[in-house]
């Protein structure tokens, strides 16, 4: 299916760059977690970069991204700079949200990254609202909402999909089916084989399954769905099959997954696959190596900036609850 819509060489390289930046960032984030610099928790997106890159490459600058606590990839893919993201992971005052949100809540409204949500399923109805707002304002914006396979079994998923379909809002729902919730296989707690696609008909939607490790295939379904939504044809539900390379979060080694399964998916790593394809198409090795080196340099530079960032000013503890900048609840 890939290749039916034309994608420029530049766009392909841009998506490759996005994937490499995400991977490089996440690998460093993991090390920094083990070093104790990243506090609390992190949920890495290693292995799932093709979904983020393929979709981001199909979005307009003013489109909206809604994603989960496993949201670094999606935030980076929208062009949010790395340094404030690292700083947020470190809990610094220079963090993307001043240290108030942390890894699970990365948000950069300026880049259309409308938030990372840590309660499974909660952001689906919120994305419906953003899409409804775009529809009402006739702005032509589309809301793209990413979530995991596990989220398909929570009530908010059902309510959001139905409302989106009834109101025909410009929203694209993307289930990143990485086969697992935290430590439990999605198949063991779901009544159907494809947790998202097999539910599409329940909302009058088409069942769309895509190889989530093929950035071009992802990009193609993304463009089709986003363009249709923008044209007023209503929402779409897409299930992208993928796999997280590591554990669920923090120090989880992911031992609950059969070795053979892990190996099979590692062999289908989206980044080397796309690299090989680009080389086969005549992109020079040096050009790819340069992208990779730039990503490494960018991550290192961002880390350095973030390390130098100040601790949060204690005064910010009580700021920005309300629009007046403060948090007074009484006189």
């Amino acid at each position: 299916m890939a290749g039916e819509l034309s994608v420029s060489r530049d766009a392909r390289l841009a998506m490759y760059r996005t994937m490499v930046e995400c991977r490089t960032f996440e690998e460093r984030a993991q090390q920094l977690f083990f070093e104790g610099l990243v506090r609390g928790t992190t949920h890495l997106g290693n292995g799932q970069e093709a979904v983020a890159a393929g979709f981001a490459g199909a979005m307009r600058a003013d489109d909206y991204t809604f994603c989960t606590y496993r949201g670094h990839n999606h935030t980076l893919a929208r062009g949010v700079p790395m340094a404030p993201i690292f700083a947020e992971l470190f809990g610094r005052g220079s963090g993307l949200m001043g240290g108030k949100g942390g890894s699970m809540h990365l948000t950069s409204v300026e880049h259309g990254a409308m938030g990372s949500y840590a309660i499974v399923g909660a952001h689906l109805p919120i994305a419906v609202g953003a899409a409804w707002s775009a529809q009402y304002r006739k702005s032509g914006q589309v809301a793209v909402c990413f979530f995991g396979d596990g989220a398909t079994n929570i009530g908010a998923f059902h309510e959001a999909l139905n409302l989106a379909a009834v109101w025909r809002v410009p929203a694209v729902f993307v289930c990143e089916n990485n086969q697992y919730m935290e430590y439990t296989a999605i198949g063991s707690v779901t009544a159907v084989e494809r947790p998202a696609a097999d539910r599409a008909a329940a909302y009058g939607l088409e069942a769309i399954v895509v190889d989530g490790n093929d950035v071009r295939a992802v990009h193609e379904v993304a463009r089709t769905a986003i363009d249709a939504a923008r044209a007023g044809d209503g929402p779409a539900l897409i299930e992208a099959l993928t796999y997280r390379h590591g554990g669920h979060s923090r120090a989880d080694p992911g031992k609950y997954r059969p070795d053979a399964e892990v190996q099979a998916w590692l062999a289908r790593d989206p980044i080397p696959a796309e690299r090989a394809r680009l080389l086969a198409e005549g992109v020079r090795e040096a050009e790819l190596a340069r992208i990779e080196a730039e990503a490494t340099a960018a991550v290192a530079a961002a880390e350095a900036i973030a390390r130098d960032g100040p601790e949060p000013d204690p005064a910010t503890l009580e700021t920005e609850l309300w629009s007046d900048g403060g948090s007074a609840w009484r006189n």
Partner: protein
Amino acid sequence: MAELTYRQAVAAGIAQEMDRDPLVVFIGEDIGAAGGVFKTTEGLFERFGPERIRDTPISEQAIVGAVMGAAMTGLRPIGELMFSDFFAVAWDMVANQIAKTRYMTDGQVSLPLVLRTANGGGLRFGAQHSQSVESWAMAIPGLKVVAPSTPADMLGLMAAAIRDPDPVIVCEHKALFAVKGEVPDGEHVVPLGQARIARPGSDCTIVALAAMVPRALEAAERLAAEAGISAEVIDLRTLIPLDARTILDSLARTGRLFTVEENPRVLGWGAEIVSIAADEGFDSLDAPLVRITAPQVPLASAAVLEDLAMPSVERIAATVRRRLDEAR
């Protein structure tokens, strides 16, 4: 001055603001052509049309979530939860998402939204349709909470809630819908966070909210007539922001404080008022701080039991009188 019912004041407040700002939109169950199950939204659909007034499925999480998503992207949405008990179904959206997002994003996201709801007991609807949930919302940092007791305040506080740049929960009391009252002509807005001294007095302060305000006022009249007790009655109007100043000032004058709460006792809003008074007003205290509340049980549907549970004029008056006697 026009005379409106509290019910009509709801629609009037919404209409005033929808007229003023095309970004105000409104969604909920049966709010459109049907005019709402309490007829609080009658006429809005006809006036503002299906783009601005939208019926939803029975999907409270989606209603509240959609309101949030719309608010963060430029609209000023209003969502109705038909009965306040249904906040429980969407509590994650309210307490974890709406209340926290501005803070978590360090101010990147603004949520100028209103969630309005029929709150409170007295209509024999039973335990799942009669709760006073204003205290649930009051406890969550990031939510403003309004609970008017008169048609004029209903209209004016609704308008203020819609204009407010932050999330506001508007609790409309079911038992007050039929109450009539004067409403000022022209644009009317009552600022959030200002309590109202509904009746001045010097012997004690009675703090009440919504449907308990008329009861507290009537009890105060009886106390004056029957026992020569001069009770000051404060209509809180807004729980957050809380007008603690008005309460503490009144307490400084009277030395005695009572709260009248329709909710079950434990952690009703009065507990917070009392905990403020017991600290900052300590030097003013001439007597124990007394909370008059429903007992710690769900609300029964039988008239006899429901009436017994909610603070009545008699119970308020008798409690105040007895406690004042004891303290003498």
